[in-house]
């Protein structure tokens, strides 16, 4: 079933500059979709539109079959959790514990329930020992994990990672990607928004945005094989893929090597 439907979505910050133009796509429940695009392709605007922080000029957004409008915006926000790009600018609480509690406090959870969930989900992201720590003592990756815990505590099934690894060092990036994979295997619907193809290779579906429009939508394997589209997208190709394309160009037909290169693309 479709958990998110974007129909004919358009939005401009200023009159002459369309950030998004007639964007259409759907996301099924339990899918992991990567939205790829260069900086300025419009992907950052998408998240804000989906939860009603911005109002679209044109088009419709359906979340769990509910049309997004002024009356339903709060209901829809309860269904979607977002991990934003800047770990410092989304951490509200004075301590880790307070931050995980923030969303639940907004939703009027009972105190005992909140304390239980804080324990459970902080353990899940391996931040239990840090509950009383203040954010300035944490690394970027740790702060993002706290954000994940806070989202899980609200029982949201759809999680959007909006360039959540962009400001992290390689170690931090790896740890967040691991949590994303785990959450996907547990059945959550995951949307990762990124400009790094390495983060998209394990997702089910890839949507490529370019200059505010959808360049390509398709299953990951199919899109990764589509050399023309990838070249047009302005995204950096994965090394094994580059080799694969070179072999194709030189008309070298070694199946074993191609298979190995393909597997290498997916593993990274």
């Amino acid at each position, binding site marked *: 079933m479709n958990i998110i439907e974007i129909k004919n979505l358009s939005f401009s910050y200023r009159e002459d500059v369309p950030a998004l133009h007639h964007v259409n796509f759907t996301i099924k429940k339990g899918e992991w979709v990567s939205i790829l695009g*260069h*900086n*300025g392709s419009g992907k950052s605007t998408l998240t804000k539109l989906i939860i009603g922080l911005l109002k679209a000029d044109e088009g419709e957004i359906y979340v769990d079959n509910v049309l997004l409008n002024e009356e339903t915006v709060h209901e829809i926000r309860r269904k979607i959790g977002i991990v934003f790009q800047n770990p410092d600018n989304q951490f509200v609480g004075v301590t880790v514990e307070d931050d995980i509690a923030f969303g639940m406090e907004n939703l009027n959870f009972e105190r005992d329930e909140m304390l239980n969930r804080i324990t459970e989900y902080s353990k899940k992201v391996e931040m239990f020992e840090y509950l009383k720590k203040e954010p300035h*003592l944490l*690394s970027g990756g740790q702060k993002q994990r706290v954000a994940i815990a806070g989202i899980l505590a609200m029982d949201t099934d759809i999680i959007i990672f909006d360039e959540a690894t*962009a400001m992290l*060092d*390689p*170690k*931090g990036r790896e740890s967040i990607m691991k949590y994303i994979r785990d959450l996907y295997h547990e059945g959550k619907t995951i949307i990762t928004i990124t*400009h790094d193809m390495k983060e998209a290779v394990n997702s089910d579906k890839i949507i490529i945005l370019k200059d505010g429009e959808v360049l390509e939508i398709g299953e990951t394997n199919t899109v990764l094989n589509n050399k023309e589209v990838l070249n047009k997208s*302005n*995204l*950096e190709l994965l*090394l*094994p893929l*580059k*080799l694969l394309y*070179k*072999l194709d160009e*030189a008309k*070298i037909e*070694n199946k*074993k*090597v191609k298979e*190995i*290169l393909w597997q*290498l693309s997916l593993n*990274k």
Partner: protein
Amino acid sequence: MAIKFEQVNFLYPSFDNDHFSALTDINLDISEKGEFITLIGETGSGKSTLVQHMNALLRPTTGNVTIYGIKIEKNSNKDKKIKLNPLRQKVGLVFQFPEYQLFEETVLKDIIFGPKNFGVKEEEAIARAKEVIQHVGLSEEYLERSPFNLSGGEKKRVSIAGILAMEPDILVLDEPTSGLDPKGRDALLELFTNIHKELNKTVIIITHDMNIVYKYASRVLVMHQSRLVFDGTPNQLFMKENIAKWNLDLPDIIEITNQLEQKLKLKFDTLPHNVDQLFELMKGVL
């Protein structure tokens, strides 16, 4: 020897801070000419602390750093005879986040801010700005714009331009390509290579990107837990050392080559430096 570290130890005056980057027993020589150095190491290993000693922003707790003949020790800032400020024109340091630096109404004013602080006359500074803005890949029309209305990548380039306009002898950059898309990244690295080759200046880059290290560096410094654990060439680093012990990754090209060798059960003659070289090697065996 432009910069010399002798038995440098550094401890941050602590507020009970867990992020306690320090320096332990650092001995290091950096010459003014001809080096393209990459400084790598995991977060917290002391890289930023190290480079902040290179332009006397920080002073060692014990030991000394000699920069262009001026010996700097713990209390050198209190010594009236030692002028630390001029050193910052000679060793230009670009910080990782342009937001910490951009503050003027226009890009032009921001770029000439540095040179003017070091005594460059306004007309000369403006002329430098016009030149330098193009070096970083932006057109002159950017000079009239507000630095706050630029994209992340553009801000980055303006901040680099601001230091280049000071015409430093040594250029130190903290993660200059983070946040840039591949095209922007390559353009900037081209620029730094040019500065290095054509003007024969030393360029030092802090980075997490092993691919940059492998492709551009002639010398690699590795920091691990406040110590300098490696000082040599990239080839020496990647071929000989088990860099996993320092929590570092291999450059993609070497990683792929290793994987191919493993899975195809063969060994290539040489270690490729880029995709094309690897492709040639592969053609050879297929």
